[in-house]
């Protein structure tokens, strides 16, 4: 099992290192990978049909509660079949579609990575594991969408797709973590054991919110939908795979998976119904205005996804069965339509429906596949689409009164528009006569069977499932629906329900859709309306926000990192004063305790006065030399203080160091020009105020720290033992070379490094032209 899940990753790894082998004809062989996984999972059908859930667990990171736990139930099975089955077709198709591409091996590496991630996603029995695979699908799709990396548009779309789905991913993580906190586990199996538990948690709303953002972004629900049309820049096999059967369905899968845990709650139902309903209508309406085949498909896909979200939102038994069936229906016909579009693009060099027509004369078999897919998408009787559509109406009709009258028309309109979209892509390019621009014939006259067989298989399946609905029902749909619903549903798929309202609705759909197809041609909308509509479109709003963020970031960064050292120091100091000052004045009660303080004597006062004057001189003098001299006077006065308070060693050191510093200063600085005097009064005042507060704060803290002097047991230990244990009488020196000798050792190294630094600074002359 683990091998099956991870084989995609292994394949990607092997391809990354020995890709050259698979750049040519051998690439066809890679299709065997998804095919064999498909076959592997076929063995589990008996178990799944018996209603069993198969679990596998491998230890990975128990400390975080993450193990490689996998779980195969009806829902997973449905998705596994789609991923590997359609995957196999795509692998074969791409071998011909991208034949001779110089990075074909990389393409397959990404595709395998993607397939592996997708498999992992639908099989994972651990929320965090789901997230891991979720992110991996985002990343691998980034590489797939941007596969034509020399195209700027393609790069931009890849980035946009990653940004939206990646951002959603983080919300998803938050949702999972929140669930983990509430349930104390990341295991879905354990959560499912107590399905009602999460709904009663106070965090429920937040969990739901984060989950929705995550799954809506991935399955392109309004207002996150716009990355999907952009992602059509990807090579067509990628679009077919990612945007019909797999990646966008990941969000649907997630909702379906958590439906028994979180569903059946007013918030859940309403949000999903509203979002899904709006998305399906909005996108279907958009698809009608598009002329590019892939754009039509993109919008109709969004619409279909909206439909699925909508159905899961309704959450009744009918709706769930409808959702499960529609996942399959949609995957079959949409993948087929994409593949056909790919062939058209490949052979005719254009995807504009205005410039296409009559292609059945070129490729009759492809036309047949297109027809089958279109019919299935239209829900014409005897196709699998018919059953799907039927179920949708059943679902909307089996709701309570108010919803029945609002949702049914909603579904009806959407379905009519979707039918139009299906016909436009599946039939229109093949109907009529060949236009001028295509009179030269196909670009590659001999169409490889690798290209036309896959869509034909998909079309054939649509019919096969339509004729024998109990096959998909028994194998996939009913078990998937049961998993979503949380308990067993018995609601077999049927071709014929008798003459009833559902049938009428289906008939209306077909008639109205066909009428639309024959009577309407998309025209370019007037520029003004388009402008206004576009301004409020989420895509534009996102781009606008992005642009404004960038602008804000620029100004924000420039304001803070303005290049002036003094402004940095000012910020740091003000922060220090603000933070510590606030804490100090708000909590410490200022006390003054003079007991133990020594008296002030005249001599001390004189030294003090000299220091103060010297300091003030250093600060305010306009002469550099004066500043240096008065600074050395400060040093010398401090020496006197040290001498006076029993620190001869300190005094000696301070004295010599002070002298040396002055010597250095003079040696270095006597050639420098005069000070620049160019800061204005206001600035000086401001700096003075900041400096004053800083000094005052430090003084006050010192004063408070002196109030309750600590017990200096360590000093006493040193004093007591300096001679007895360390055999020295100068305690300071004993501390320096013995008690705290390590400090001194390090200190000499500081000096060493400084000397080396000075040496290299002065001796090493770099010319500006030298290379780094």
């Amino acid at each position, binding site marked *: 099992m683990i091998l099956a899940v991870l084989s995609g990753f292994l394949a990607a790894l092997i391809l990354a290192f020995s890709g050259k082998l698979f750049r040519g004809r051998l690439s066809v062989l890679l299709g065997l990978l998804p095919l064999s996984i498909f076959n592997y999972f076929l063995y589990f059908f008996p178990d799944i049909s018996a209603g069993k859930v198969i679990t596998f667990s491998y230890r990975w990171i128990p400390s975080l509660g993450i193990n490689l736990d996998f779980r195969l139930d009806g829902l997973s099975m449905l998705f596994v079949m789609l991923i590997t089955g359609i995957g196999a077709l795509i692998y074969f198709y791409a071998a011909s579609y991208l034949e001779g591409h110089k990075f074909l091996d990389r393409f397959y590496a990404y595709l395998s990575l993607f397939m592996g991630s997708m498999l992992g996603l639908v099989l994972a029995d651990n929320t965090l594991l789901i997230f891991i695979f979720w992110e991996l699908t985002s990343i691998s799709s980034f590489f797939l969408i941007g596969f034509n990396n020399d195209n700027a548009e393609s790069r931009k779309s890849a980035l946009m797709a990653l940004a939206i789905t990646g951002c959603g991913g983080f919300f998803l993580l938050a949702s999972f973590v929140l669930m983990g906190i509430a349930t104390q586990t990341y295991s879905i199996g354990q959560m499912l054991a107590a399905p009602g538990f999460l709904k009663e948690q106070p965090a429920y709303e937040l969990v739901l919110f984060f989950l929705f953002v995550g799954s809506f972004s991935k399955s392109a629900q309004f207002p996150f939908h716009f990355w999907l049309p952009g992602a059509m820049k990807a090579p067509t096999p990628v679009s077919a795979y990612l945007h019909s059967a797999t990646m966008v369905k990941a969000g649907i899968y997630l909702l379906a998976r958590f439906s028994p845990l979180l569903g059946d709650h007013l918030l859940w139902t309403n949000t999903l119904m509203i979002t899904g309903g709006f998305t399906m209508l909005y996108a279907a309406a958009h698809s009608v205005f598009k002329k590019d085949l892939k754009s039509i498909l993109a919008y109709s896909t969004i619409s279909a996804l909206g439909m699925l979200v909508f159905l899961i939102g309704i959450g009744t038994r009918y709706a769930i069965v409808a959702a499960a069936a529609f996942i399959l229906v949609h995957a079959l016909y949409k993948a087929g339509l994409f593949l056909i579009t790919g062939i058209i693009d490949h052979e005719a060099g254009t995807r504009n429906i205005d410039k296409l027509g009559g292609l059945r004369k070129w490729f009759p078999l492809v036309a047949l596949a297109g027809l089958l897919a279109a019919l299935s998408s239209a829900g014409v009787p005897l196709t699998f689409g018919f059953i799907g559509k039927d179920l949708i109406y059943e679902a909307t009709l089996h709701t309570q009164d108010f919803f029945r009258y609002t949702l049914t028309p909603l579904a009806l309109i959407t379905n009519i528009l979707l039918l139009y979209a299906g016909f436009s892509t599946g039939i229109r390019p093949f109907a009529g006569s060949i236009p001028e621009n295509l009179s030269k014939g196909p670009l590659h006259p001999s169409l490889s069977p690798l290209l036309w067989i896959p869509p034909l298989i998909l079309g054939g399946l649509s019919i096969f499932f339509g004729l024998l609905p109990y096959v998909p029902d028994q194998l996939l749909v009913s078990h998937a629906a049961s998993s979503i619903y949380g308990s067993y549903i018995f609601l077999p798929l049927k071709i014929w329900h008798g003459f009833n309202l559902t049938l009428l609705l289906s008939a209306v759909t077909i008639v109205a859709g066909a009428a639309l197809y024959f009577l309407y041609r998309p025209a370019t909308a007037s520029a003004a309306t388009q402008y206004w509509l576009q301004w409020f479109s989420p895509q534009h709003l996102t781009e606008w926000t992005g642009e404004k963020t960038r602008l804000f970031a620029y100004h924000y960064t420039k304001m803070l990192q303005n290049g002036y050292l003094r402004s940095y120091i000012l910020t740091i100091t003000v922060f220090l004063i603000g933070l510590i000052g606030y804490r100090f004045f708000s909590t410490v009660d200022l006390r003054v305790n003079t007991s133990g303080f020594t008296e002030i004597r005249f001599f001390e006062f004189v030294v003090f006065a000299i220091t103060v004057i010297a300091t003030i001189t250093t600060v305010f003098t306009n002469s550099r030399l004066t500043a240096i001299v008065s600074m050395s006077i400060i040093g010398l006065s401090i020496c006197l203080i040290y001498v006076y308070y029993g620190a*001869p*060693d300190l005094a*000696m*050191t301070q004295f*010599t*160091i002070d002298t*040396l510093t002055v*010597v*250095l200063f003079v*040696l*270095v600085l006597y050639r420098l020009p005069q000070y620049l005097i160019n800061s204005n009064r206001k600035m000086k005042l401001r700096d003075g105020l900041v400096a004053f507060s800083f000094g005052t704060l430090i003084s006050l803290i010192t004063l408070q720290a002196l109030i309750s002097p600590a017990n200096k047991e360590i000093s006493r230990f040193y004093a007591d033992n300096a001679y007895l*244990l*360390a*055999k*020295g*009488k*100068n305690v300071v*020196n*004993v501390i*320096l*070379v*013995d008690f705290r*000798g*390590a400090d*001194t*050792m390090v200190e*000499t*190294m500081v*000096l*060493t490094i*400084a*000397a*080396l630094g*000075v*040496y290299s600074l*002065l*001796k090493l002359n770099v010319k500006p032209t030298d290379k780094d």
Partner: protein
Amino acid sequence: MQSTILKTATNYLLPLLLLFSVFILLRGHYESGGGFVGGLVASIAFVLHSFAYGLERTQKLLKYPPKSFIPVGLLLSFMSGVLPMFGGKAYMTGVWSSEPLPVIGLVGSALFFDIGVFIVVIGVTLTILFTISESIDQ
């Protein structure tokens, strides 16, 4: 700058100051002083000499460039700390001779440590000052 008086004075001062610096170094354990101040005094002696006779003479007098003093001193103070480790004691554990020597008193690892510091300080100070003077002369 190279006045005769300074030269003559330096002739006497250099050995005196060096002696004094060693004195400061050695007595550090008992009275104020120590390797650091000692090293500074010694470097001042050499700086004076360079003022009197010029940099080149002083460098000749030193034989080795002052920079090469640094690792020697570092190694010495490092070794004085490491030696006790071979006896299974902690780094920098004091090891002492049993009999005191005249003037210096007891000889212990701390003394060698201080001598190391002394040498490093001379090396560092002279390196800094000499490179600066050289760069100014250029």
